[in-house]
């Protein structure tokens, strides 16, 4: 920009160009809310989708790239010990997920920190949901014995009654 200096009488003046350089300062990254679904009986070691992606205004100036961000778990509930986090933001199934049918809790929140290369950090919430999978019914062979004189239309087995072994069971508690 141009700056002009003029003496009080206005007779003499001069101008000079002043160049102003704006220096970029690093700003904190942040992590938006993420929600990840995990199907029961997913293989241990599986990577969960989507991968966490932090945000940073410095991306716009190309000082940083998203891949430069690192992620760590700040806190997570005890019931979520089966999920771990790589520094690149990939959530991994580190142990067997609980059964959907038997697990009272089916959704957990954990706090994750995202850090840029200059050490500035931000935090966000990551939700992990346990998803139901349907499994085949379980059927066991059974044997019945009855005399030949048994009248027709006699009930030989009622699979609905708890007093007899049902003709099939289902770990999902589905109706058979």
């Amino acid at each position, binding site marked *: 920009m141009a700056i002009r200096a003029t003496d009080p009488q206005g007779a003499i003046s001069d101008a000079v160009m002043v160049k102003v350089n704006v220096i970029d300062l690093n700003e904190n990254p942040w992590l938006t809310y993420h929600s990840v679904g995990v199907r029961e009986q997913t293989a241990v070691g599986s990577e969960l989708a989507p991968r966490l992606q932090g945000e940073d205004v410095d991306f716009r100036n190309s000082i940083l790239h998203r891949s430069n961000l690192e992620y760590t778990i700040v806190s997570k509930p005890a019931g979520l010990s089966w999920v771990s986090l790589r520094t690149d933001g990939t959530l991994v199934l580190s142990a067997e997920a609980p059964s959907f049918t038997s697990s009272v809790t089916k959704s957990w929140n954990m706090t994750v920190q995202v850090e840029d290369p200059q050490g500035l950090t931000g935090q966000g919430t990551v939700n992990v949901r346990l998803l139901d*999978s*349907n*499994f*085949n*019914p*379980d*059927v*066991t*062979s*059974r*044997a*019945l*014995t*009855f*005399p*030949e*004189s*048994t*009248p*027709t*239309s*006699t*009930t*030989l*087995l*009622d*699979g*609905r009654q708890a007093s007899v072994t*049902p*003709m*099939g069971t*289902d770990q*999902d508690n*589905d*109706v*058979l």
Partner: protein
Amino acid sequence: MEPATGTPLFLLTRTGILTLGGVGLNFELNSFYQVFYTAQDDGDGRLETAGHINVTVTDSPEYP
């Protein structure tokens, strides 16, 4: 195995009730049957598993 009339020897309802069909069983004709069935759930894909029941008919005294 079914008699010539086509009447089934055993009936199985969708809810799992097995009953003797409309024809009486004769020990002297046959004393062992297998009833094959499938159990189907009402979850995603309505998954099925096959099973079977072994049915043994015992002899009863009959008039000479």
